């Protein structure tokens, strides 16, 4: 692999989207794209695989539901069955309707929190983590494309210029 990358800066999302398509068509490797807001269609243009966050959310939800079933049964039926207000709790099936709110809340609780934690872990975002966007303007109004260079610096530069980049810089990869 090369140790150098080219940073091309754009000031419009549609220009960027077109540029990403052109660069990929010319068979250059786009290392990363930094944008200030979600640009729709960008991940498709870059060829990024669909995310599986929703699937993890579903599985965590099932985990929460299962956990709630287990502890409700243990607490209310197994460990200390009581007759509360003339409604004895000796069978889980008969008492289940009263547990529906808790079953629901636990499903949501597990799904939401664990999915967000998974998202933070996968995208490597947490407190005290240093930001890695190479140019501070990419959180404001600029879009940055990072293209790998492999001895073809001139070719890529001229291609990027044609795509409408407003700034093109060669950087050492870190």
């Amino acid at each position, binding site marked *: 692999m090369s140790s150098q990358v080219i940073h091309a800066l754009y000031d419009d999302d549609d220009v960027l989207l077109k540029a990403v398509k052109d660069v990929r068509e010319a068979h250059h490797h786009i290392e990363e794209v*930094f944008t200030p*807001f979600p640009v729709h269609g960008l991940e498709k243009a870059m060829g990024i695989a669909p995310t599986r966050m929703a699937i993890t959310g579903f599985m965590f939800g099932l985990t929460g539901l299962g956990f709630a079933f287990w502890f409700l049964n243990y607490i209310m039926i197994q460990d200390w069955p009581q007759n509360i207000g003339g409604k004895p709790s000796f069978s889980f099936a008969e008492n289940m309707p009263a547990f529906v709110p808790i079953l629901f809340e636990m499903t949501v609780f597990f799904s939401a929190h664990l999915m*967000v934690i998974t998202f933070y872990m996968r995208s490597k975002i947490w407190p005290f983590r240093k930001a890695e966007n190479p140019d501070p303007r990419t959180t404001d109004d600029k879009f940055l494309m990072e293209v790998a260079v492999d001895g073809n610096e001139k070719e890529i530069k001229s291609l990027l210029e044609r795509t409408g980049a407003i700034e093109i810089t060669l950087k050492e990869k870190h």
Partner: protein
Amino acid sequence: MGHYEAPIREPIIIGDKNYHDISVDVAAPIEGKANKLWYIAFTISLLAFLWGVGAIIYTIGTGIGVWGLNNKINWAWDITNFVWWIGIGHAGTLISAVLLLFRQKWRMGINRSAEAMTIFAVFQAGLFPLIHMGRIWDGFYVLPIPNQLGSLWVNFNSPLLWDVFAISTYLSVSLVFWWTGLLPDFAMIRDRATKPFQKKIYSLVSFGWSGRAKDWQRFEEVSLVLAGLATPLVLSVHTIVSFDFATSVIPGWHSTVYPPYFVAGAVFSGFAMVQTLLLIMRKVSNLESYITRVHIENMNKVILVTGGIVAVAYLSEFFVGWYTGSSYEDFVYLSVGAATGPYWWAFWALIICNGVIPQLLWIKKIRTNYIWTFIIAIFINIGMWFERFDIIVINLSRGHLPSTWTQFSPTFVDIGIFLGTLGFFFVLFLLYARTFPVIAQAEVKSILKSSGNNYKRERDNPSAVKQEKKQSKKEVKKSKPSIGADQEAKTNTLLESLGTFDIKTQQPDDLKKVKGIGPVMEKTLNQIGIYSFNQVSKMTKNEYDLLDSITGSFPGRAQRDDWAGQANKLKS
């Protein structure tokens, strides 16, 4: 193009903004200084909050006896306030989750503040169940944790316990949803910050957000799933709150219509509070371009619908109470007995504030008017407080045994705690307004091209805009620095005071690092002969004016952004 939006839809970002303008506008309240009004409001809120803290400490130290509760009315202001606050805390999630599922773009200007309001309101709500337990140090009894007191478990059949689970889930999920949405906006503030302390704080809270394409993909999917989870969650919370009453056997409480009626009431009151806060905020924080008449009108429509549901519920309760012919039903909070009895004033406050006044919103002139909206929202806030007061106090004041009939009068502690929560709420909201990006700017930027006024105009009426552009181009051309001897003289005076720069021997600085100087402006400055921070740092009012007259673009911009001050910092 993918940005098409029907011309009939009104623009929801006005004032011809571009991406950078949005960043500047959202960051302005954080980077600027608070005015006198903010300090006055903050001081009043803080005093109310402190009074509330004192009242709570007095309650906990002495006991619930310091409240105005009596033998018959054993719940009063505490639960009234609890339900009122939790109801207010419904609009935020409704706006950010339900409207996200329905792909309503207008949510983006208001969802951040509405969610902040939700979270702060739920804080206040959570206080009341805690302190009304009396022995707060035994508060952990509501959690199903293994303990040494035999097998002392909580009762999972009880709606009061469902409340514990529903509200803590709601609070924590809302908080996480809110914070995840805040990350890109905190990152924007972080990357703009010039003061080291500010930079450190916003780096910390933005969790190192970098805005990679993959991050955004995950971000969007997580937001969508969270919205899908939060939607039933928000409905479940107030449903469960209504179960606190509906599953009891007290006349007026034991009612199967409670869950939908409570949820509608919660949305109704929540939107009223959002209106109250945002109508002030859009003025104070100069956000008129992002919180527009369209937003206000749409929220008023939601208020009208949910208010209608609430009004129908009142009518049906009233009718059924009368139709049963039960003498007990004649004293419930919606009955002839209540309307003419000792609590007639509370009954009529409810009917007028919630049932009658909101109907004014059917008139378009009123629902698109800021002042009318504000007044009606205040009435709804009051009316919804009375609704909970009526449900709790009127129903309890007339029991099965006439000799126990009584009334409730709050003590100074009751009042103190309520005012204290109001103070606490506004303390939090005022601090939020000065430290958080109050508009979800990343989301707003993503709809700028489809719903921004300038973009819509260009798309819907291209020929007119082209002409406009041509004209402005001509004007710019006229004032290009190379034309005219007058300009040259000005350029020379400017360079005289700033010092010249020899491009051959010296290394030019990257002037774009100065906030407000973009690539175009840098080129213009270079043309004039300004290349270094040193030159820019010497600029004063005089030089700014000269520069403005040479370039002819962005008059006053340089001074507003304080280029000299920034360059001075960058110089070293």
